[in-house]
């Protein structure tokens, strides 16, 4: 049996460092907002023969659109370019399209997405509403799941710690995206919000499985064993299912990440980091916190 509770300070320390980094990154850098939030254009195209340097394509856009907000990336695997531009009107789109086709003979438009700022504002509002509702929904669910009080820990403590681990599991992937936004120009879009909400759902039920077992053992034990020892036993008993249920999800996420379409890349990455963090927190964070909380009270 692993002595998780005995080493709780190490595990909680790791989490504390990661959370601090994540929160600092989010506060310091914020997120780089994608076109569906901020408005703008995402233009995907292929130039099969003599693919030009991204700098060349970039300067084409900056000079033609009179802007310095043009970023072009190249994906050699698909021979495809992605240009991130300010909002482009349909007339300008056609003008640029003609010019590009003239400049590069094998130019082939794969996708064009231009979103006005008002649409973006609306989506941002909806995303915030969805996040708030999910947090409320999950909190109500947690309150319901822990409605029966068992000593020595009151039910609201379970609920509070469940929400703490939820914050933990969401903050780390969010921090990662803030760092990626700052250092690699990766943008967050609607998918990112969805990924975080899905992570919230998983995080909560993973934690609940462990806490359920703690309560069950408390009931059977009737105070014979020390609380810390009992928690450690419960974590060990539920460890296999905690890991395995998330592991199967991680397997399909890895499949999508490596074999799936590139447009789902960062969506899946956010989920991967969130779900992995979720495994860690349900074993190494939630229960140690419970013991720590209990210890302070005595």
């Amino acid at each position: 049996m692993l002595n998780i509770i005995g080493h709780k300070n190490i595990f909680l320390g790791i989490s504390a460092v990661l959370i601090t980094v994540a929160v600092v990154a989010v506060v310091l850098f914020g997120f780089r907002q994608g076109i569906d939030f901020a408005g703008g254009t995402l233009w995907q195209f292929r130039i099969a023969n003599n693919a030009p340097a991204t700098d060349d394509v970039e300067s084409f856009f900056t000079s033609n659109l009179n802007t310095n907000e043009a970023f072009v990336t190249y994906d050699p695997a698909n021979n495809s370019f992605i240009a991130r531009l300010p909002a482009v009107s349909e007339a300008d789109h056609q003008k640029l399209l003609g010019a590009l086709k003239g400049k590069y003979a094998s130019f082939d438009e794969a996708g064009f997405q231009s979103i006005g700022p008002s649409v973006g504002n609306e989506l941002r509002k909806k995303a915030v509403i969805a996040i708030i509702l999910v947090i409320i929904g999950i909190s109500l669910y947690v309150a319901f799941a822990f409605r029966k009080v068992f000593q020595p820990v009151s039910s609201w403590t379970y609920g509070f710690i469940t929400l703490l681990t939820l914050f933990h599991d969401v903050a780390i992937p969010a921090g990662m995206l803030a760092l990626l936004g700052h250092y690699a120009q990766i943008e967050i879009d609607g998918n990112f919000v969805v990924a975080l909400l899905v992570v919230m759902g998983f995080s909560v039920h993973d934690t609940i499985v462990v806490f359920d077992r703690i309560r069950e053992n408390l009931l059977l034990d009737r105070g014979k064993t020390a609380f810390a020892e009992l928690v450690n036993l419960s974590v060990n008993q539920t460890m296999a299912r905690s890991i395995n249920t998330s592991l199967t999800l991680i397997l399909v996420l890895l499949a999508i990440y490596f074999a799936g379409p590139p447009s789902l890349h960062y969506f899946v990455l956010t989920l991967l980091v969130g779900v992995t963090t979720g495994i860690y927190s349900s074993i190494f964070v939630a229960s140690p916190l419970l013991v720590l909380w209990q210890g302070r009270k005595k």
Partner: protein
Amino acid sequence: MRKNPLVVLFLIFLVAITAAFFIYPKSFGAKFMPWRLGLDLIGGSHLVYSVDLSQVSGGERDSVLNGLRDVIERRVNLFGVSEPQVFIAKSAGQDQLIVELAGITDVAQAIKEIGATPLLDFREVEVSGSSTEFIRTNLTGRYITGAQLTFDPNTQAPQVSISFSDDGGKIFEMMTEKNVGKPLAIFLDNQLIEMPTVQEKISGGQAVITGRFTLDDAKKLVERFNAGALPAPVTLISQQTVSPTLGSDSLKKAALAGIVGTLLVMVFMIAYYRMFGVYAAFALLIYILLTLAAFKLIPITLTLAGLAGFILTIGMAVDANILIFERMKEEIKKGLSRTTAIEEGFRRAWPSIRDSNTSTIITAIILYYFTSSFVKGFALTLLIGVLISMFSAITTTRLFLHIFVRDKKIPVTTSPKS
């Protein structure tokens, strides 16, 4: 069910095999009911227009919006796109018109045609000294019911004769009555095309635009009026176009990811839980077939996000199996016979299965009701997947175990129920 598990299992297999034929995109499955794929998978254009209703009085907004949708639908139908979707949406207090054109190759042309739909209105003219002022009236293209190409009997120049609806005819009558002897301006797309002087009150709801049309221009205008003039101006505020190659590429990659993911999960389950894992793998296969069949039957328009949601549920569908098997292991350790342990495992794992899916269900429902179309596809497949998996993982696995697992030795007769 307990009486004859073999029959039930046989039935489930039969349904699963039928489902397999049904979802296969070729031969039988294609003929019966083709898959509905989103624009991001077959290629196409998603256009969002904002509608300017500032010239429309409050009570008439709905009818104007519906008229606008009908007009654009007819317009779009002229391109020969299969199943174009045109619908009205309200976003941030702004009325929007959303046009979805699937499998279209020349999007630029389509956008042009939609935008080129004529916006006709009649304006009163007020001349004061050398300046001329045009005053907008409420007689616009929305009152036009039809148009015809005619020729001026004197000059043989092409003209466009338009007919107004009853209401439009009355407005036109009043307006001409009021303006006898004065000019009346006809604007097309905010351009003055003609300013005839009203000779007398015109009743009967007919008007002729003479302009200086070429035959081609006049013909086109008639065609467009017959498809309908736009009752309110629209502006393209957002567009999303995916080429058919990129779409099919995404579809292939998502399908590959789904297959790889399924195999990984199956291999893991068998490696970790051995024979039990084999049952779980079969149950997973049945889950996949049933869920895809359900998507097709409902029917759900499958988008890339929807596929992603479905692939996620493949990883989650075995959760129930894992919870049950882990519980069974514990029961066997306690000394229960295998068959009793199975029953106990199912009984005790059920609350965890229900609870663990609840938070996902909450998330999916909220996502479905409060977000954009992309997210809706994801939320819907996630929700349906989780619901079906709760049934399939439990029922089918239970049947397998019921039929194939026998106690090795003489079973322990006293099964302590707790």
